[in-house]
């Protein structure tokens, strides 16, 4: 299944890219994060993150569909 992933801030630097389109068998954002954590060595654990799918905050257990855009959201620091 093809998904679009965007990376921000620390995760953008650790992944070495802002976005990518990925072929994956991950069924949920939680599975997807485990896969990417292994690939990129992210230092943030999943319980430090939130996740958005198609620009809406999402549950980690949501069932992903072809073409979904996933963004992992590190702890924020606006203002």
């Amino acid at each position, binding site marked *: 299944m093809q998904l679009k992933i*965007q990376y*921000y*801030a*620390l995760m*953008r630097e650790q992944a070495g890219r802002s976005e990518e389109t990925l072929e994956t068998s991950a069924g949920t954002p939680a599975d997807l994060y485990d896969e990417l954590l292994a690939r990129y060595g992210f230092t943030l654990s999943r*319980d*430090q993150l*939130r996740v*958005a799918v198609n*620009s*809406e*905050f*999402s*549950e980690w257990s949501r069932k992903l569909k072809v073409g979904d855009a996933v*963004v992992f*959201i*590190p*702890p*924020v*620091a*606006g*203002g």
Partner: protein
Amino acid sequence: MHFRFTEQAIDTQSARTELQSFSAGGYVSFEGWVRDFNEGREVTRLEYEAFQELAVKEGHGIVTEALRRFPIKHALCIHRIGSLELGDMAVWVGVSAAHRAEAFDACRFIIDEVKLRAPIWKKEHYRSGDSGWVNCERCAQAAEHPHTQHRHGRHTAPNSK
């Protein structure tokens, strides 16, 4: 939208005119400035980055919530992104209301929630030459005060739409 981003200096005087009303007797504004010191380290400049589509939606939702919760007239929040120098304004919130108490309460609510919930990040560059992403205020507070509960934003999907 009651929330927007800019890559230039925030024009507060122009933004303020969007909040004017003859029925408003009080106006409160907040500005976040780039400070030279954070968590014990000397800062020389900052970079702000945002997941803009979601942050605008979230920021607009926060201001809309303030307009519903408090008897205020108008409210607006503008956040800057990109590279900022010491003293630069990173964020601005303005609120007008018939009475001042509500303007203060709503302004504070908006900036507190934006800092807590909007997907915006900042990287601090230190005098020592290195740099780091400020992960979140509450993480930092929790690290400094281990008995404080550690919270950084809402980890479940919000029920706002």
